[in-house]
């Protein structure tokens, strides 16, 4: 069913980081793929050597450095760039997009339009009109309405190894889900559809907060009981934040929520987990960020959620404590103690 007759068309991937190349290779099992790299030398290197910085590309993947070429060749495009660069990338891509394009992003971050003179660490309150999901940014910046999001437990390195895995493609449009499934699924990769685009986007974004916290616990040499406590309370907090922002809790109980949370909260292969782990080992946040090759979206998400919580007056104890340990020099042990003493009411109160 999934392997449609349209397999001679080319799909596009924007972003040649580890997830971008993993996604391109996965797509290459079903389609020809055009992979965009922002820097011309990276595109050239990949094209010539088929490999770059330990990442290799499938034979059916071609490289490009031109967004106009990408938009011309591909009707279905997967943007996988850091949320920080997303608007800027769309400004370049926008002029070449038509309403017939379909965009399925795989970005687990939020877009923030900060008030003048503020940065993420100083901003106290943010409202919903200042914080956008990636699909909302696409609809704001381009003519494309048929948008979707791919989220789930998809650690790039495991996908590259060909291990069995699954993802969720969420969109309001059946057509986008169908196209996404057709392009992505294979005998080792399942693709579930979901109509709750906002819920799925948020689930993927919020789990990064918990991944950092899990990394800290691991770095402090806590064991499985503690991790299970974090995963469970972390999920409850994600649902709570989601509900405060108007999302349906259901999305959080699937692959993009609990699924992704379980994967990243125990994996040193996750960037966000790694940030937490290194913090616990005594490095400062600035040292860690400086030495990391790719962006850990979770750091930004912690700031955004903390500012949203201040504005809409909901409590998010894990996020708020994490913020204090990341930016206000709160001792990790002290943060841990605070959380243990936090008066949660019930075990399962969120559904």
């Amino acid at each position, binding site marked *: 069913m999934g392997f449609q007759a*349209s397999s001679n*068309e080319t799909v596009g991937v924007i972003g040649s980081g580890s997830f971008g190349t993993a996604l391109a290779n996965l797509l290459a099992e079903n389609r020809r793929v055009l992979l965009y790299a922002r820097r011309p030398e990276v595109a050239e290197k990949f094209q010539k050597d088929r490999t770059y910085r330990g990442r290799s590309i499938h034979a059916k993947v071609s490289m490009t450095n031109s967004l106009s070429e990408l938009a011309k060749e591909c*009707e279905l495009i997967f943007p996988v760039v850091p949320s920080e660069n997303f608007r800027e990338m769309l400004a370049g891509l*926008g*002029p070449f997009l*038509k*309403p*017939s394009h379909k965009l399925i992003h795989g970005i687990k971050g939020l877009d923030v339009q900060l008030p003048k003179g503020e940065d993420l660490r100083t901003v106290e309150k943010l409202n919903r009109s200042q914080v956008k999901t990636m699909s909302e940014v696409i609809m*704001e*910046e*381009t*003519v494309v*309405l*048929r948008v979707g999001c791919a989220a789930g437990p998809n650690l790039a390195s495991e996908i590259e190894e060909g291990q069995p895995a699954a993802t969720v493609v969420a969109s*309001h*449009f*059946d*057509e986008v889900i169908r196209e996404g499934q057709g392009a992505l699924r294979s005998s080792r990769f399942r693709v579930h559809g979901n109509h709750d685009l906002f819920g799925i986007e948020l689930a993927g974004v919020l789990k990064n907060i918990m991944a950092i916290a899990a990394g800290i616990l691991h770095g402090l040499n806590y064991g499985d009981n503690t991790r299970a406590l974090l995963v469970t309370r972390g999920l409850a907090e994600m649902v709570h934040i989601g509900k405060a922002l108007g999302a349906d809790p259901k999305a959080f109980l699937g692959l993009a929520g609990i699924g992704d949370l379980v994967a990243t909260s125990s994996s040193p292969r996750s960037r966000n987990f790694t940030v937490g782990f290194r913090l616990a080992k005594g490095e400062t946040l600035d040292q860690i960020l400086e030495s990391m090759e790719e962006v850990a979206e979770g750091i930004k998400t912690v700031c955004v959620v903390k500012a949203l919580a201040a504005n809409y007056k909901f409590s998010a104890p894990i996020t708020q404590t994490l913020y204090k340990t990341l930016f206000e020099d709160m001792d990790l042990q002290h943060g841990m103690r605070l959380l243990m003493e936090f008066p949660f009411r019930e075990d399962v109160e969120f559904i």
Partner: protein
Amino acid sequence: MESVQHYIQEGILYKPVVPNIHDWPIAQLFKKKQHFLEEVIRETMNGLHAQTKIDHTSVSDLIAKTMFMERIRMTEDPWKVDPKDEGKYWSDIKKDMVRIQQLEHDPEAFTQRSDQMLESIVSRYVNEIASTFRPASYHFAKRFLPFFFSTLLNASAGKTVKSVINHSVGLQEKVHLLGETEAMRKLATKGTIVLVPTHFSNVDSILVGWSLHALGLPAFIYGAGLNLYNSAILAYFMKRLGAYKVDRRKKNPIYRQTLNTYSTISILEGVHSLFFPGGTRSRSGMIEKKLKLGLLGTAIEAQKRNFLAPPRGVSEKIFVVPMVMSYHFVLEAASLINQHLTFTGQEQYYINNDEFASYRKFLKFIWTTFSASSEIALSFGKPMDLFGNFVDENGNSFDNHGRRVDIKSYFMTRGEVKEDWQRDAEYTRMLGDKIVERYHVENRVFSSHIVAFVAYQMLKKRNPELDLYGILRIPPEERTLDMGEYRKTIERVLERLRNMADQGKVHLATHLVNDVQTIIEHGVQNLGIYHAQRPLSFQDSQTLVSENINLLYYYHNRLEGYGLSSVI
């Protein structure tokens, strides 16, 4: 100059866009009425067959469901205007249903018979919905109505006998046509317009009708609630002016499909259309937040079909123009808000026997509205395509960054226009959201809206422990507001609104350039002026009092959704 004089006499402010009434799309459509109705029946049948495939049901299931819903409607919600034979009709259908069950062994005969029954039901609905358009009636109406209005206005304006006869106060002096009127006129010849006004009062449809006429536009086709047909005078005109009947009680799938097809094909034929997408008048006084998507969907459907087959109208393009009406005063406010407070959250379309039932009551209604209102604003919003992109006067779409958009592409996949029911339903939902967003921007704020908003919010703030129903029960002696504090609050709200207006987030009436004291006096004086109990009035020069908080709440609601309560 002679012609200008002539237009003014007929109540037209602008030269007609299409001078000969027989060339109007609506006149063209009804010249071949029989052909049109046959197409509606045929297309409805096709649509229903397609729907049964999607839903994995059958035509006989569809008939059974419709029959069931119709029988419930007839017993639980009968109206005076309902046809006398409908009981018999549906009991005959029931007998036929029993009879064709015996054809179960012969699927072909069964299908044929059930299709015949379906066609009979669809034809019945089409004939019930259908209107007509008679140029002669229009000529009469356009001469009669302005005369009628100006007589009312002059009489109500308390002018001298001489000025009443001379009609020195025209409708245009009380009713301001604002916004994109020029663009409307240009676009009327560039494609098909779908006008979507907010709906607060029963006078809305009359005012919109007049405004289109005054702008020199051809008549629009318009879906009128069946309850309006209870009034003989309205029924007479509406039937002949292209208004088709919409019976909101009939929620069965066959009726809905028939109604939607009627609208789709009218738009396909290039006939400009008018929907009130809120469905009914706003009970709460709030600007509509949730729209009825059924008729909006017909615009999307027509737009898609214009790309699947050569367009029949002047071009393939369909434009949406949101329109917002602003009043100081809504005559039915008291009954509307009481319904809202009693039935909050419930859907209700019931017949208002007491409002429009007789000619005398109708006249009194109109007279009261015009005599009491010092000002009514009809704002034509920025025209858009069906995907929320703004269009220029030539009908070209532009995105947020000013780039041209080829809208055909919204229906395309792999280079071809594709049918996709689910996709179009999503587009319709998005269009609904966009229209709601534009309503808030195009809204023209009056002094009376501000004075009501601030007064209610101050009472609310003073009683933080009370919920809505608690506030509405505040005893009369506690419903007073000190002018000093009130004036300061008005100032803050005004400042916020002026900022928002500068950013293009809302529009302000010209009378809001005045100083605060003048604005307050103007607002209080005009707010709900006709009501027996005033929503807000001066007890003395230093104190305001609300005689009727329900009404105050109603008028206050007009400014809900702008985040203004944060500056109270």
